[in-house]
């Protein structure tokens, strides 16, 4: 039985996790970057080394705006924020880009057509996979209040090379296997990699001198994991039966 908590204010769980993300990364010296939710094809795809008619485009189901020939869309990731930031700022760069993104896909308990993404970008000299690993371990440890390690597996995203999938050691069982990690000890949580030289160059950064890492993950998924929310769609219903629990 719940206690009667009266008419007190509540902050939405997505905001709570975004707040944690912003705090953790600000403390680590990252700036928070933002950008428009309506984007151009150029910033959402072309500058990110995802050419039209490339099978890789299938990875992002896209909402297009009318008229189609204007080539405007709802951003499918916050990567355009990274590109715009790189165009406007010189390295060293340390930013996160949290924000709302859209995917044209059927919705169910784990898929929404709108959700929040957290992306991060670091550009400097000699930025490595080892730095990426360290940064993410710091982040997950602070977010879940538990020492955790990350595991990298090969993956492919056109805007990074090498590309990796990030699994975090299960914060609930610590790697022994439980219902949260489906018995595997790890939770698939992020895509990441070292920024592709083409992406650096298209933003006016000398890829001979600078390198960087980038990562991206779903904030909604972090909310679901952290608080045990079982259906992502509940986050957008304005339903106090959910929100008042926070």
């Amino acid at each position, binding site marked *: *039985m*719940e206690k009667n*908590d*009266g*008419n007190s*204010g*509540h*902050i*939405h769980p997505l*905001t709570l996790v975004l*707040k944690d993300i*912003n705090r953790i990364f600000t403390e*680590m*010296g990252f*700036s928070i970057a933002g950008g428009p*939710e*309506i984007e151009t094809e150029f910033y959402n795809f072309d500058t990110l080394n995802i050419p039209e008619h490339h*099978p890789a485009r299938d990875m992002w189901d896209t*909402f*297009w*705006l*009318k008229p*189609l020939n204007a080539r405007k869309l709802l951003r499918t990731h916050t990567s355009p924020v990274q590109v715009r930031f790189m165009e406007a700022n010189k390295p*060293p760069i*340390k*930013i996160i880009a949290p924000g*709302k993104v*859209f995917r*044209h896909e059927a919705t169910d308990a784990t898929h929404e*057509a*709108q959700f929040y993404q957290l992306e991060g970008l670091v550009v400097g000299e000699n930025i*490595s*996979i*080892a*730095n990426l*690993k*360290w*940064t993410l371990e710091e982040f997950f440890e602070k977010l879940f209040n538990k020492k955790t390690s990350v595991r*990298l*597996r*090969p*993956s*492919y995203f056109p805007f990074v*090379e*090498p590309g*990796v999938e990030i699994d975090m050691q299960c914060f609930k069982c610590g790697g022994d296997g439980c219902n949260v990690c489906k018995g595997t000890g790890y939770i698939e949580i992020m895509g990441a990699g*070292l920024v592709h030289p083409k992406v650096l160059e298209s933003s006016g950064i000398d890829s001979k001198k600078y390198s960087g890492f980038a990562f991206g993950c779903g904030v909604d998924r972090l909310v679901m994991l952290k608080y*045990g*929310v*079982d259906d992502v769609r509940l*986050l*957008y219903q*304005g339903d*106090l*039966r*959910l*929100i*008042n*629990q*926070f």
Partner: protein
Amino acid sequence: MKVSYKWLQEYIEDKLPEPKVVADALTMHSFEIEEIVEKDGDSIIDVKILPNRAHDCLSHYGIASEICSVLNLKRKDLLTEENIPITDKISLNISTKNCSRQIFILVNDVKVNESPEWLKEKLASQGSRSINAIVDMTNYLTFAFGQPMHAFDAGKVSVNKKGQYEFNIRDANNGEKITLLDGKVYEIDSTNMVIADGTKALDVAGVMGGKDSGVTNDTKNIILSLSCFDPVSIRKTAKKLGIRTDASHRFENEISESLINRVLPYVLKYITELSSGVIVGMVEVNNNQRKETKVSVSLDKVSSMLGLSVSSEECISLLERQNIKSVLSGDSIVVTVPPERLDVKISEDVVEEIGRLFGYKNISPAPLILDAKLIINSDVYIGDAVRKVLGGLGFIEIYTYAFSNKGEVLLENPLALDKSYLRSNLALGMEESLERNFKYLDLLGIDEVRLFEIGKVFKNKGEYLHLSLGVKFPKSKKINVDEEIAKTIQTLEESLNISVGDVSIVGGVAEFDLERVKKELNPIFEYPLGLWDTSNKQIKYNPISAYPFAVRDVAVFVPNEVSREVVESLIKEKFTDYVVRFSMFDKFTKENRTSYAFRLVFQANDRTLTEDEINAVMSPVYETLKAQAGFEIR
């Protein structure tokens, strides 16, 4: 791609370890594994091949070779190319830029047999139906080596004046029609490519063969076709016709023309074995003889990208395991890219090949030491500042959908007709949320609804960050909702030392642009909501029940000297798990007695509660209260 474990072994000299070991090794060094299914004494491993390796890995040989790279196993030698005579019985003309290599092989006097068991088994492992030995062979070799191929019935191909079978690979004519193997008629145009004879299209190139020119039981002579097509052209055609085949899937992922060389000896071997046909000869056009490419990467770069030092010997040996030849030249590794490895183009690609075989798990985390200029985000700042004030005033933050049935910005491809616009305001979603949540007051244990939302709205001129506020009270509270909102806005202005200007308030809902307010704030680096502390609260979400809740009230007079806590504990003793909320909603004293009124809310997670189940709590509550000296149920 679903690969058969037994089939993989055919290309590997060493004995493969257990399927689970193979799957784990691929997972950590190459590709994700979707699942392993045991089937007829075999294991079918579903490998999620990454888009950049679809060039060379969309086949059993491709995956087997990758396993050899990862587990350091020895590959079996493949058959090498046999000499096959050039025939003058076929004329080949390519007039499109989208076909870079084409081979036709004429085989006479074939018998169209049923496939032998081993071949049927191979196809079954791929979920592919056996048709006849010739068609089955073309499919088998596609799954084996990744090079699609097709067999034409030579008798259906037109013959020119010189008595040659006539083939034209060309862009289709606008309005040209063709019936494909699926039995459907397709209209094609000049953006599609066809393999045609002198009079008609026989095949939509790279996608599907024509119904009329396929191999049947009456076929005497066949012409086998192996091609290399432009990936974009095939992708557009397959998309336009709505057909996805094993062939189109491979062509659109760009396969190397060199795969033809790999499969050709097997084509010649199996066509003879399976059809007893006589190979007359072949014709070939190859406009795409790939030159050997070299990519070099400095050892410094390998170390600085991975964040650990790897010796040149180790780099070379890790590449060698992948059949990638490399040498040390000065301080750099120079790689000769195998023709099928279209993914290896730049030095970073080589670093990936070294890194993933070396194993990312062997890279230790290294602190990020890099100072960059801190820039404050004013959108985040204003949002958090507003949240902090409103949260403190008892307002609850909601998030609603950006899609709406009204607005100014239209979507080209909405998910549903009533979601075809982007919202132009937050007020609509606010009104709906106020209504909906008002029904849950008892369940939530609140007696009013105060909501706010911060989010983007979309207008013809652009997108704007808005704040909306809404309140709804029961009539009994006798509060003017618009005045309440006005008061709230005033408090917000005073707390943040800003002015939001004229805001229209209708039915307890107000909305305004945060843009102008942002300029008045002077953000500092401490984001305001950082102070909204949840760290000491262990929040665990309880799933919302989909079933209705029921409300029951009980009011009782008790002697003044009996405390509220005593009354409450008497009631609580009778609770079951179905009582989800309990609160006192009224209290007054009359002479030497005090009346307490309590509200109980009942709900189950798995069903609608019956009257009996509710009474199973309420009756004992009444009984126990009645039994107390001086108590009287009202």
